[in-house]
């Protein structure tokens, strides 16, 4: 694979994560931190950036180790790798950004079970080269960061009249408190989701190509909207089913 080829692939992964397969607005993954920590733009950005770092590094390492990790224990292996990075990031946050660590609280350790990270490890990094896996992680992380910052910004402006802690609304504006509470997160997420669908559908009507980039097959047929794809499948053909594993162990006993 030539250098130019891998470079285009890298750019394509970034666009894919930011727009085409945005983890929050398109894949609808990682809803727990999305709804819980986006009470302000800063919190949203912090959560997104933390996830970005963990996602990029774990994708890289998993891709490097993809030929060593046995298929049957890949999920525990992924979790160990992800958890290591989360621990590192949490210690760094505690040391250098304690205010952010306090604001995000339990949601930092919970990045371990964030389904975006596990999802990318399983569907992309485990079957692709390290460079494109790294950029896939960065793209997905950026998409997550942008989405969370947007949600956080809207909630902060409507709920407190500020953005990144700076007052921007006029004095006469009464903050609408519900937007920094739990229901506000659902309202804002739904409206932003509807808006991006609206833009995409209008784009499709105008004749723009909104289907996924053909060569960027993530082997993730569950979440792929590509029609008429010959590779379409839901499970790996050579994947051993759990039932078979069980019968084998029983035989051994």
């Amino acid at each position, binding site marked *: 694979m030539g250098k130019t080829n891998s470079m285009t692939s890298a750019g394509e992964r970034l666009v894919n994560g930011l727009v085409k397969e945005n983890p929050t607005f398109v894949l609808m993954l990682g809803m727990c931190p999305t709804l819980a920590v986006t009470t302000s733009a800063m919190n949203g950005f912090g959560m997104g950036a933390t996830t970005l770092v963990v996602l990029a590094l774990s994708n890289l390492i998993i891709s490097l180790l993809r030929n060593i990790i046995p298929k049957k224990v890949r999920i525990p292996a992924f979790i160990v790798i992800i958890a290591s990075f989360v621990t590192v990031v949490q210690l760094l946050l505690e040391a250098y950004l304690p205010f952010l660590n306090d604001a995000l609280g339990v949601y930092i350790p919970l990045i371990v079970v964030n389904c975006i990270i596990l999802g990318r490890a399983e569907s992309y990094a485990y079957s692709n080269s390290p460079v494109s896996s790294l950029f896939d992680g960065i793209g997905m992380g950026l998409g997550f960061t942008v989405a969370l910052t947007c949600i956080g910004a809207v909630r902060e402006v409507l709920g407190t009249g500020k953005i990144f802690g700076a007052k921007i609304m006029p004095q006469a504006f*009464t903050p*609408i*408190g*519900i*937007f920094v*509470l739990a*229901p506000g997160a659902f*309202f804002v997420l739904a409206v932003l989701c509807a808006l991006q669908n609206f833009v995409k559908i209008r784009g499709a009507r105008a004749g723009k190509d909104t289907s996924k980039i053909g060569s960027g097959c993530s082997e993730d047929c569950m979440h792929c909207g590509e029609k008429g794809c010959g590779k379409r499948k839901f499970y790996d053909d050579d994947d051993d089913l759990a039932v078979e594993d069980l019968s084998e162990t029983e035989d051994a006993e």
Partner: protein
Amino acid sequence: MDRKLKVSSNPHIRSKVTTNAIMMAVVLALLPAAGFGIYNFGIRALLHILITVASTVLTEFLFGLYKKKLTITDLSAVVTGLLLALNLPVGAPLWIGAMGGVFAILVVKMLFGGLGQNFMNPALAARCFLLISFPALMTNFACDAYTGATPLAALKAGEAVNVTDMIIGRTAGTIGETSMVAIVAGACLLILLGVIDLKIPGSYIVSFAVFVLLFGGRGLDFQYLSAQLAGGGLMLGAFFMATDYVTRPITSRGQYVFGIFLGIMTGIFRIFGPGAEGVSYAIILGNLLVPLIEKVTMPRAFGKGGAGHGRK
């Protein structure tokens, strides 16, 4: 052979009762409460009512324009606006009704598919939205006429209240909730016209009274009991909001279950909760349980699933 039977598709039984007529009846029945609110709190109450109704009707009109299906003529937006306005404290800023009206119609009603599809009473959902968003503005009942707390808050603080004033309505509170006499007069009209029946309001009020007697901590204190019944939004909620056709159970047994649930929840909120009032949250919670209540209380169709057939 001339045809004596006309064959047509259903519905075969036609009724003169239309959505429009029912909504008109509800508006008429709400007028005594609204009128008393204006008499009690002054011209600002009228302004609140006009702004809120204008906001709901305009929102429904604009959404209708966008969807190319105008639905304002069924008057349901007027009812929502009127109910919401009657739930506002008179001292609140005037824009609050406008914002609540937009939320009630756009978010709670139209985005879920319009009249008949909303899973919550739009007026109450908007009231809860405003109450959570602006707790200070929505619970400030001081105005020109009254400076003290609402009777329920006074009752919670252990102070004495004048029950006669509460029944007539000369107390602080939201615009339309204070006068038990005016609300019951409107409710009688609805019952006479057959728009509502006593199943939900009756089981609601009776179960609430029993709850207060059992857990109110005052024993058989009828002064306290009647103050609890006449105070706050209980009467308005029981007769006008819990009976909303869209968000109440359709089965007869379900309506009793619904009413008893509301009574118990209101009692829990009022006696054990931090606030003095709990009618709106009780009804909203009840609305959410309606599909479950209907599922459990659906009557058995004739000839199906009897003792010999074994229920699934």
